């Protein structure tokens, strides 16, 4: 990704959710002559968090940005703001040669569940790209979308995860993401990797 201006930052804003947060933050960026190059937000339990890549014609400090934001609102915003320089072209965290999988875990809520599963993944250099956890009645539901380096034997990994799940009374499954794409989206696969190649029917005729 290439930001519009040289002085690019990653901006993180956390606040109690209410209407107008995005308008306030993007307004402050505009007031400083800057551009929002990418953004994503999420809300969890009534709390709002926003991550943006923003860029300005001239360098801007976090304090200066917060001052602009407060000045615009005319009062302290109550936002927790963090800004750090944006580094373009970071290498992919999982390294090259990964396939996308989904880990789903269902079981009784207990302290340390997420840690134990994520520690197993971390030990194997498996990067979590999306994480969802929610109590559903008595049952805790944990869904991670992960990038698994191709060097791992899938059946061994599945066995490790299932064994860890069983210790905690959890049902754990590790499935390639294409099964979820195929059953929910209009296309059969994401358009990369062997399954999508197979989906295109390329090179299969003998």
């Amino acid at each position, binding site marked *: 990704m290439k930001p519009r201006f040289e002085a690019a930052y990653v901006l993180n804003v956390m606040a109690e959710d209410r209407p107008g947060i995005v308008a306030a933050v993007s307004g402050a960026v505009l007031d400083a002559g800057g551009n929002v190059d990418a953004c994503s937000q999420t809300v969890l339990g009534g709390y709002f968090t926003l991550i943006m890549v923003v860029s300005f014609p001239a360098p801007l400090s976090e304090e200066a940005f917060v001052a602009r934001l407060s000045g615009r609102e005319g009062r302290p915003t109550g936002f927790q703001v963090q800004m750090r320089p944006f580094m373009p072209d970071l290498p992919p965290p999982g390294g090259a040669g990964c396939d996308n999988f989904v880990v789903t875990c269902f079981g009784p809520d207990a302290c340390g569940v997420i840690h134990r599963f994520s520690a197993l993944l971390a030990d194997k250099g498996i990067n979590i790209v999306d994480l969802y956890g929610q109590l559903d009645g008595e049952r805790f539901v944990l869904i991670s979308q992960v990038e698994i380096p191709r060097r791992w034997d899938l059946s061994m990994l599945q066995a490790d995860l299932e064994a860890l799940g069983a210790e905690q009374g959890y049902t754990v499954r590790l499935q390639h993401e294409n099964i979820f794409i195929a059953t929910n989206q209009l296309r059969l696969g994401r358009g990369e990797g062997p399954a999508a190649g*197979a989906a295109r029917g390329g090179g299969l005729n003998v």
Partner: protein
Amino acid sequence: MLRTDEILSTIQMLHAEHLDLRTVTLGVNLDDCAGPDAALLCRKLRGKLARHAGNLVSACDRVAAKYGVPVTNKRLAISPAVTLLAGHGRAAALDIAAALDAAAGDAGVDLLGGFTAFCEKGITSADAMLIDSLPEVLGGTRRVCASVNLASRKAGINMDAVARMGRAISAVAEATADRRGFGAAKLCVFANVPQDNPFMAGAHLGAGEPEAVVNVGVSGPGVVASALRRRIELQPDLTLGELAEEIKITAFRVTRVGELIGREVAAELGVPFGIVDLSLAPTPAVGDSVGEIIRILGVERIGAPGSTAAIALLTDAVKKGGSFASASVGGLSGTFIPVSEDAALAEAVRAGHLVLEKLEAMTSVCSVGLDMVALPGDTPPETLAALIADEMAIGVINNKTTGARLVPVPGGKVGETVEFGGLFGSAPIMAVRNAGASGAFVSRGGRIPAPIHSASN
């Protein structure tokens, strides 16, 4: 990025509702194994099947594990065996069947289809020999399945072949009397047989198909039933049109599972992917039942008036959803109502709600026909033939595939339950009303001419 609700709904379908892939069927053409030396022919066919099918089971298992979807059956379908049998005698037919059985065993598959002949217009000497060898072939092998096409839209119905198959089915049942006539469960007769059907017992690799190809058959009645129940619980007053939409969406998702896995298994085996057969195939497991769907739609007793309309709605919705999901739809692609393999249908027969005549009416709008129907052992062969003729007529006139898989249970009486085991399930023996009253019609023989298709009322 995938959405959480998408992931959860797929997990629900695969794991709470136990969606599986009913069958991955590898078709292999064996025409190049034919020759005058039967022993050499058998060696060649075993070699060829071993080369193509050696990795079938392991490839299916690997792909199944990757996606978390079990592949319930791995099977083989061969080009019609009648080509191999031509010029040979009965002994060679039995040797070839034994070689096929052994090859299927070596590959680790439970069934092999394609002991097949086509007789819709006439019977060659090889066809006749294949049909006459069926009692020994199906009695003497474990895995070989046979099928015979007896009628087509263009040829009409070959009643000589129909009569011959009536006798053959009786003889096969007698030859397997120690297993309650189970041999007949591995024998299908068809009108308009498809060339790429992955489901047993009718699977074979027909003319115009590649050297080797992977075809898959989906499952999913349980998933459709759960989806309908969920929707009705939220909105009890849904119309049939709205329920048809729900079936369509579910069929789309079920078909996608089949296509994804089928294509990947084909890629692993280095052969082309052929088709997904959309047919909702029930299993004897409670809940995985087409009959249950009829009940959910509101026909309390399967077989009551409305059952045929309900099956028509279901079949059409499945075809619509499945056709959008996959560009490679084939085989039978409709709805199966095999009595012994569907717990709710078997129960409806037991309770006296579903009779043979109503089942036949339902087959006019589903995809197969009188499938896995247990009949009294003393049903005359002419009556079996007449039942087949009726089913063939439905297919020929309506321009669709129909079939019959009738199991006359030696010594079996109406109402008695017969256990076939495994996916073949169990069923009560159904009454054939007016048995013995069709002999003169059948014995006339000849061909019922092909119908006219311009005056289509």
